[in-house]
């Protein structure tokens, strides 16, 4: 008995405990994430309507190539990605460094106020944005007050997309700001003090100290936001219902509508979601290659 105990070194014991703790989570992830993913892939190889599915090889993937709605939705989604993610992250970073100021009063109040949008439900904030930009909504009433003709925000493709981007920025900036704030806590204040003594202005210390030291956090938020935007659903569904036409519909919204609104084609929907998965993975790899130079 004693020899048996001895044969297991402390190191081994520790690593065994470690694996022991990891095991439940690993099993759960395999069961609840990877298993459905494999199932989705298998489903994407079948075609047909409703429950009448049969294997058809990669026909769903070739079908995507000739789907004009898919292209439109892909364009919309990439548009949101390119405009919204950089604007939001820059804004979040700027807000975080402002709120990190030691001498700022009511810091907690400001932080809470900026983070609060994240606590609202996606559906309810979408509804509120929709009513704000309605024909006789708040924004048009204000415009009228200034003598400007009211705008049909949701009737035009570009204004509708703009509203989605605005809504996304309002909802998610605070969320990313919190990560930056956390990252900023790890930067010694003395570094800034030293820089100031050496004559660096706030702009310089932002670009020379804050940004480089926050790089891992910035990388993480970029990947998360890219991922989130590619899977955008609630805003497209609730704020604009994809309209006018399909000009604001996101890919996930299109996937939903192929499954539940149009005549159901689960195989095709699964194929499209696999495409999104690939896109997310590729973009994340690129971002990691570009951003992480350790």
């Amino acid at each position: 008995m004693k020899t048996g105990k001895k044969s297991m070194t402390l190191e081994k014991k520790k690593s065994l405990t470690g694996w022991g703790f990891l095991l439940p989570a690993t099993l759960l992830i395999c069961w609840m994430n990877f298993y459905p993913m494999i199932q989705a892939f298998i489903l994407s190889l079948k075609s047909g309507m409703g429950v009448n599915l049969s294997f058809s090889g990669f026909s769903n993937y070739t079908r995507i190539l000739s789907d004009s709605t898919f292209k439109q939705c892909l364009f919309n989604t990439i548009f949101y990605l390119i405009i919204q993610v950089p604007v939001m992250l820059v804004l979040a970073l700027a807000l975080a460094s402002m709120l990190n100021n030691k001498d700022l009063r009511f810091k907690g109040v400001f932080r809470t106020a900026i983070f609060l949008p994240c606590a609202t439900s996606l559906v309810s904030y979408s509804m509120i944005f929709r009513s704000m930009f309605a024909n006789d909504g708040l924004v048009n009433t204000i415009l009228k007050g200034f003598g400007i003709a009211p705008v049909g925000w949701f009737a035009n493709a570009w204004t509708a997309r703009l509203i989605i981007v605005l809504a996304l920025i309002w909802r998610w900036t605070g969320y990313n700001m919190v990560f930056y704030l956390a990252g900023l806590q790890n930067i010694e204040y003395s570094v800034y003090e030293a820089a100031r003594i050496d004559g660096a202005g706030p702009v310089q210390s932002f670009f020379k100290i804050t940004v480089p030291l926050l790089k891992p956090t910035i990388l993480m938020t970029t990947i998360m936001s890219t991922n989130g935007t590619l899977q955008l659903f609630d805003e497209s569904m609730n704020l604009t219902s994809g309209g006018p036409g399909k000009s604001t519909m996101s890919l996930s919204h299109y996937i939903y509508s192929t499954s539940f609104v149009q005549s159901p084609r689960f195989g095709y929907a699964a194929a499209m979601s696999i495409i999104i998965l690939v896109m997310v993975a590729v973009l994340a790899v690129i971002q990691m290659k570009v951003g992480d130079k350790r």
Partner: protein
Amino acid sequence: MKRKIMAVMLVSAMTLSLTACGGKNGGGDGAGTNSEAVSTVAESVSGDKDTLKVWCWDPNFNIYAIEKAAELYSADYEGLNVEISEMPSADIETKLTTIVSSGDLSLLPDVFLMQDNSFQKYVQNYPDIFTDLTDSGIDFSQFAEAKAAYSTVDGRHMGIPFDNGAAINCMRTDILEQAGFTLDDFTDITWSDYMEKAKVIKEKTGLPILTVQAGAPDIIMMMMQSCGASLFNKDGSVNIEGNDILKQCMEIYSSMVKDGTILEVTDGDQYIASLNNGSVASTINGCWIMASVIAQENQSGNWGITNLPRLDGVADATNYSNNGGSSWVITSNCKNKDKVFDFFKNTFAGSTEFYDDIISKGALATWAPAGKSEAYAEKSEFFGGQEIYSMIVDFATKTPSNYTGPFYYDARDAVGIALSNVAQQGADPESEMKEAQSAVEFNMGN
């Protein structure tokens, strides 16, 4: 201290969510074993047999109706309880899709309500959900033909027709008066006449004659049905490109948007609000819209109902159409089919007493004998003393039937997009229709 409070809150939130999950699981399992027990020992569990699980929406309308039906049935025949889960039609459809894909049909209720426009799609894609009612003893010949056609597939009756979606032209008589018109000026007219009068109303009162929800082509679909036209040919192929009737409808719509006689609003709430706050002179919709109109009680007496304008130069054009409406489905999971057949036979398909009662909610019958009852001849004060109920039943019987098919929503979607491009961006209708045609064909093809 702060942190401690925070920690306690977090932990309690986690425990709560965990127990919530557990609760759900437990419930699900319970339901599963329950229905299993029923199907195996159905005879011995009489308590479950008399409870009808129903999915439907709208407490003032559908839910009221089925509860009333159960009450009347229990009084005259055997006891019957209904256990209602209220859910919007879109949720019911999503749930059905999910249940069928999971393969566990025992999760289905006994009875649910389905939008007429979705009916063909579901019967075609998920035939296993439905119970064929052709030989159930229910007399389908007594229902309005156009209505029963929605739930009839290959000559088999798959649903029990319920509420009426006959289209009405619901007008503010006081606003018409300001513009020098009466309701008669809008009765039995053509669309060209209607558009001219709409311009006069716009000029004299500044109000549009119609508000519509942007992107929702309801009005186009009503115009199409008013002459029996459809977006599909009888053989099921798409009939959008080169469909002259559709083109005429789209042109009417976009020219009315241009001269401001149709105002497009962003969502359903705003559409209802525009009716209630007097920013529009009239609306054309299924007769169920009356429930929303009546909600504004101080406008009592200022509304009137007449029929729709008809299309010019179309051979089968009528002044009557339909929008919405729903039918009851008895699922394949129903435990005591004979009793449920008997229930429907003696209520929804056989009781004037029942229809006389639910008319107080504006639920109009498509069951012909109900229209002859005295309750339908009652005058409505809100609508300026018109006999609206018998009028709408009359509209319903004159409505042409059209083919919806399993791809109805795909086609409707495509037409909605074409319409918004034509009306908002001034796109060419013919090329937009061509685009819509290929979009629907793409959805139909493999």
